[in-house]
């Protein structure tokens, strides 16, 4: 069965919100006053995250009783697409807001909800994702990090890798093995781990552009109290699966190279562009427009209480391949050798996106793995 995506029509309130976010950004974060980033790779700025939270723009899809705003996924989409395309520094709260709070909300204990979610909604607590390991990438069930039951909690040993932002965030939700089972998808559990706990060692893994984005997180005899087990012991695999629909279907998988296109236009304003550049620009804009409609439709499904695993994988795959195509198409419109040190913002963005581009179709599930997920949904 082909999957059903329904067109989302923005209400008058949602349009007003869009306008409000645009005005906020133009006022609080004017262009030229900061170095804009490429979508969710934008820098981390705790102060900015807090200011957004004060506007009610963190925790939008979280119930009010936990400090959220009960506005749903589409409302969140509208706000975050503006932040992403502006290149705003949203990294600090990004993962916590997108998925960690949702996981705690869905599977956590009442005490965990009270403890973590309001702080996430306040833009204070930042989270990372503790899934990948040296021997477990696409094949996540192969993870070896192990939590052994001890008095009052768990003792954890293992190594997580590629952990984005762990050097800046506060916690991660970590998938680990809590028991051996015949089916290796059983016996996995999710634990909330304070990244400042004794025994947690965070080592930078340098990114290919020389920057510091991801890390190796080595856990040596880390004690995690009982009350930080998320959901049911042994059910971590299923819980992680549900987490991934939040991770995959959003505008962050589409808008990484947005500013590249916008800055191309800005730097050429007033000069005639010629037919090839016009057509390339048109191609990109048409596709941003179309894929955006699919992405917002996925978020409507989430609001309807569905878990659109196949739909979000379908969109993520298409969107991230397009992101890479955009970078290459724009690169060929200009006769420059992109440099990270260039005096032109457009050229810096081009350099950064050429270097980061390959990761778009790897992080959050590789193209190849997504094809499998979508195929299952199409059966």
């Amino acid at each position, binding site marked *: 069965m*082909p999957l059903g995506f329904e067109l989302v029509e923005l209400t008058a309130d949602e349009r007003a919100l869009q306008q409000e976010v645009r005005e906020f950004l133009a006022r609080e974060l004017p262009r030229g006053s900061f170095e804009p980033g490429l979508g969710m790779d934008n820098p981390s700025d705790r102060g900015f995250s807090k200011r957004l939270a004060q506007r009610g723009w963190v925790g939008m899809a979280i119930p009010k009783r936990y400090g959220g705003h009960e506005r749903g996924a589409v409302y969140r989409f509208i706000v975050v697409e503006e932040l992403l395309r502006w290149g705003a520094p949203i990294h600090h709260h990004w993962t916590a807001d997108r998925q960690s709070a949702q996981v705690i909300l869905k599977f956590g204990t009442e005490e965990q909800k009270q403890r973590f979610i309001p702080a996430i909604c306040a833009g204070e607590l930042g989270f990372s994702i503790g899934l990948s390991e040296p021997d477990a990438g696409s094949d996540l069930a192969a993870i070896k990090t192990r939590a052994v039951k001890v008095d009052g909690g768990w003792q954890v040993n293992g190594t997580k890798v590629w952990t984005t932002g762990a050097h800046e965030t506060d916690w991660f939700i970590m998938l680990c093995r809590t028991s051996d089972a015949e089916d290796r998808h059983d016996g996995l559990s999710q634990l909330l781990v304070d990244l400042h706990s004794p025994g947690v060692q965070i080592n930078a893994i340098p990114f290919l552009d020389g920057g510091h984005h991801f890390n190796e997180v080595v856990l040596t005899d880390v004690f995690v109290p009982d009350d930080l087990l998320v959901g049911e012991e042994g059910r971590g695999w299923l819980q992680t699966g549900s987490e991934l629909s939040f991770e995959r279907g959003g505008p962050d998988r589409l808008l990484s190279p947005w500013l590249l296109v916008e800055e191309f236009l800005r730097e050429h304003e007033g000069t005639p562009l010629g037919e090839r550049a*016009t057509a390339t620009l048109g191609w990109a804009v048409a596709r941003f427009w*179309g894929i955006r409609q699919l992405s917002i439709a996925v978020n409507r499904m989430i609001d309807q209480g569905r878990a659109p695993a196949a739909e979000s994988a379908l969109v993520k795959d298409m969107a991230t391949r397009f992101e890479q195509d955009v970078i290459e198409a724009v690169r060929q419109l200009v006769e420059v050798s992109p440099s990270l040190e260039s005096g032109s913002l457009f050229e810096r963005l081009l350099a950064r996106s050429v270097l980061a581009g390959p990761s778009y179709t790897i992080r959050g599930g590789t193209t190849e793995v997504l094809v499998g997920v979508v195929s299952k949904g199409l059966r």
Partner: protein
Amino acid sequence: MTTTTADELLVDTARKVFIETCTFEVVEAAERDGWAAGVWEAVAGVGLPWVGVPEAVGGVGGTLADALAVLRLAGQHSAPIPLAETGLLAGWLLASAGLPVGQGPATVVPGSARDSLSLGGGRLTGTAFGVPWASAVERIVLLVEDGGRWKVGSIAAVDAEVERSLNLAGEPRDTITLDGVPVELAPTDVDAAAFERRGALTRVVLMAGALDAMSRLTLDYTAGREQFGRPVARFQLVQEHLVHCAQDAALVGIAADAASRAAVLGDASFEIAAAKALASRAATTATRAAHQAHGAMGMTREYALHHLSRRLWAWRSEFGDEHRWNNEVGTAAIAAGADELYPLVANGSDRRTRT
């Protein structure tokens, strides 16, 4: 209030009619014979060609949303009749000029650079190319410039000399030659750009239907076809074709929805341009994937894939190909400028009027 959703009862009726009449054999025979009288009679019998055309000029009423929903089903079922032409194009032009739509199938002159029609003393002379189903319709409608303003012209098809010609899907795209043919003329507020957009919208909607059907057909076929002891749909590389085809179908489906909705509400210039650019591109990539996943079976006349793929190859070029519409979108993007570029993507044609 403007209705942006189609009438469900009508859509159900249309679906039943297309399922019953547009069988594989009938679609094949239509291509051989140049006309599918049975399909036309069933479809016309319930008024479908004139949905969305006001009753005042001889239509059956209903909304543009209704008409586009019916057309999408026609695309899904490869309905071999001038459905887009009769109501959404000819009927629309005629209604815009207050001219009667008349009975029977009608078509429009799409307008090509090679056309040489000229108007003089209320008569038309010259040649026009690629006129859909000219050989089978009763009325041919066109948009002409007359004394510095746009007018709709309507001629009886019997007055035209028709030379038959076919598009890649075997649909009639005839050459008509007129030699002082009397034409009924009335002024309209439709101009050439609006007409081309309307034509592009019909092709987007037809292609959305065809892509959806092609995606389903390919899923079914690969689930049943076994090689190396298992369904070919189990092979990862085949799955990639299935996913790409489903992605194209989903993308064009939602683009058609958005363009249709914008057209119902008013200015849809951006949405239609973007949707046609996407649809024409998807026609290329999705047919490639679907054919590859089918193996040789997709290459025979005896299996239905070609009803869809050949239509997609034909429709992707009609009323402007992807390059033409990419340019249109690019021009709109440049006109919007860097600051307004994202609002254009997020809000489309009406970003100024309704924010």
